């Protein structure tokens, strides 16, 4: 897994869960807000990804949840492995950006 880059959508889902546990609809909203609507997840794409992330142990389900919440809602939580995968991906992106900067594709930060 580590040698393969994550799809934008999967990476965004992991990012959403980086600092909070969220249920499905909240993930979609969070991603849309952070990317200014550029990445729009559909329910199907979200759960296709959730299923795989669960299978790969990158996220897991949270057992405790707020009492007044819809009981059908399940909350998802980033596992340490998931956190590492997301960080690796972020680092990979950063290395890419650095290379682009070295080739003057991007302006270097002061």
């Amino acid at each position, binding site marked *: 897994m580590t040698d393969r880059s994550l799809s934008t959508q999967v990476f965004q889902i992991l990012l959403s869960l980086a600092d909070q546990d969220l249920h499905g*609809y909240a993930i979609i909203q969070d991603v849309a807000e952070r990317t200014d609507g550029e990445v729009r997840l*559909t*329910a199907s*794409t979200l759960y*296709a990804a959730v*299923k795989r992330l669960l299978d790969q142990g990158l996220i897991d389900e949270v057992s405790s949840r707020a009492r007044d919440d819809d009981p*059908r809602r399940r909350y998802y939580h980033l596992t340490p492995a998931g956190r590492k995968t997301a960080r690796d991906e972020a680092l990979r992106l950063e290395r890419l950006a650095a290379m682009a900067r070295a080739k003057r594709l991007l302006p270097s930060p002061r």
Partner: protein
Amino acid sequence: MTVRVYRALVLLLLPTGFNDAFAEELVSVYADLDRAARARSGRAGAWRALIGEIPGLVRIAFRERRTHRTLRARRVAPRLEENMFDSLAQDATFAIRSLRRSIGFTIVAVGTLALGIGANTAIFSVVNSVLLSPLKLHDPDRLVAVGEDSKAATTPSVKSTSPASFFDWKTSSRTMDLGAYDPGYSRTLIGMGEPQQLVGTLVVGGLMDILGVRPLIGRNLTPADEDPGAPPVFVLSFDAWQRVFGEDRDVVGKAFTVNGVSRTIVGVMPPGFTFPAAPNDLWFPAQLDAAVRVNRDQYFLGVVGRLRPGAGIERARGEMSAVMDRLTRDWPKFNQGNRIVVEPLRDTIVGSVQSRLYVLMGAVAFVLLITCANIGNLLVARAAARRREIAVRRALGAGTGRIARQLITESVILAVIGGVAGVAIGKSFLKLLLAGQVTTNLPRVEEISLDSRVLVFTLGVSLVVGLLFGCMPAWHLTRERFTDGLREGARGSARQQWTRNALVVVEVALAMILLTGAGLLLRSFALMARVDTGVKPDQVATLSILRRKPDPNFVPTLLERLRGIPGVQSVAITSMLPISGRGIGAWFNRIDRPLPDNVQPSGEGYRVVTPEYFTTVGIPLKTGRMFDANDRREVPAIIVNEALVKKYYPNENPLGKPVYLGAPDNRLFDSAPIVGVVGDTRDAGLGSDPLPTVYIPFAVMRSWPFYSVVIRHSGSSAPIIASARGVVRDIDATVPIMNVQTLADVVSNATAAARWSTTLLGVFAGVALMTAVLGVFGLLSYMVTQGARELGIRIALGASSGGVQRLVLSRGLGLVGAGLALGLAGALILTRFMQSLLYGVTPTDPATFVGVSAVLVLAAAAASFIPARRATRIDPITALRVE
């Protein structure tokens, strides 16, 4: 609603394993999204969101199933509840695997199917474009063709009418808006490089508005343009605009010289508009002067009407009949015995080819049915060979329904692959048909294409075909106990044998019907080809000329110079070539026996010719004399053909009898005696009776503008035609030369339609015969292999090889006999629909039926002979040891 659809999709498409864990949550999240989308952009937004979900769903459906399968391989207990997609996908995978295993069978089946479906696709493309799709005009179902015909005509057809009658109809009608046209005007346009030869249609009574066509650019022709004082204008077809003017938008408003008159282009019509028939390059308003507007004896206007809102065709017919009654009272001389015919416009355009195309469509459908029967036969044989496999699967718990579905899935997949290949084959076949110009004589030929409707048709046919032959082996399954299969192994059951026999009988019967149809067409065609055309077409070259300015010396000079070309034997001019139609007609009046006042004379075709015409094209003189240089305007004479003598002078000597052509006050010439009688020519087509025809000397009708030159020559025609072109150019370089062809071409064009339908039906019948014979052969070979043990025992018990051979042969011929009987019955019923395509033979022509039966029996006997021979060589020892 959208949420419910989504839930249904999830449950239907996604694997059960996934749904158990996520379905509810997925749907609840989707419900949230749906609510948000609805709040943002209403119902449309909700549907957009639903459509956006589909790719994701499909991806899960496939991806999860893949992992699901690998998991299932390790699982012990099968899951009972699986959804439709699960088992369908499984069936499909299994079917593809099993088809791949018997690749030879698959290739043969797909190949024959593709051919059958391809032929259907191509012919259906033609039928679809010509017969089924609506005319490319605004609201075409409300357009009607209106015309005049004699009350005596058994099948009334829409014929042209005179200007005065047209205007009477137009002003009287409350149910229709009427317009008229006269097509086929040859026009020379000057101002775009070389003089351009264009074909135009004369438009009367605001026709363009009635057709409801909007110009692409510029404006339409209006009734105001038809005023004799209005500035001359015209509109271009899209095609001519592209071809001649290079799509230059600025041509609108420019003036060009058209046949010597300066005319302004006011508009360009949209692509595909070629009314009344392609090719048509331009339309110009008829600026009929007062004399022409009141003319009642020149029948040249085709009339089109648009039914007004609320009016149906029956009301229009009733109204026109009342109009005719009134006109008959007012103008008995012109209207007595006539009626006004109103028909849907579409019918008058395509009516003539309807039966021809439907017969062909029926023929290809039969070919496909035979193919189906053949593949069904193969499948039943395959099912027999797979009996043990299937029995094992059933023993392991597969339900009958599941196995039947499996077999049907296999055939549907086979048929769909065949269908896809069939579209490709159909496309090339259609291209072949169009390139071979077999469709030349069809109306709307420019519209023929393989469109989405054809694709839907092909897909539908493939599915039906797949279900049809897939059901046969499946049907067997449901009616046999699987223990039989385990016991008997790969030997077919009696019931399967029965089905296979029945299929072969059906194949032979269908082939018999097709062969009969083809045989009848072939015989008509042979008879037609043997018909005496009335001319001697070999070594006669023809070309057409349009003389724009009257020049009395042009024709004499032309004939003189053409005669000077080495190899030319005789040269003449005619207003219309023989065998190419009736041409212009006029009332035929006997001066020695005038008709009573209230009886309308009938119109007869006439041709304007120079003296040598008859010898040049080979029309024999029967009595009297040919034309000569003394027949002039001042002392006219005419020659008639035998058909005219038969009609007007039965038991009389026509020679010397005076006649005139035209209406009393509008005669082509005042009076002329008949000086000769010549042989008949089949001007209305080789299948039709000769028409009464009058020949008028060219010198009597000097102002004729358009004519054909006929040249009888020795040697080959190419150098003669080249020299003739040179001569014309030399005399007047502005004279356009058209339609260069030999008289033999003209004659062969007359049979083109019959020729191509005969050829196609012949090919289809040949394919049918071959398929049916292969079916007989396959069945008997299989029978010999499967029955080897029985035959072996017979041989061991002392049956002679002749006896064994007879046994096999008699089985084969028994089937063929049954098929033949069935086919004869079918042919007797179906060939009557071909009546209108036949010439000289009846639909039940005994000779054809006997001949076709003989061909079929011989072919089947030949096919039976090989397996029969093989049967005699069976070694009883090996045969008994098998199994």
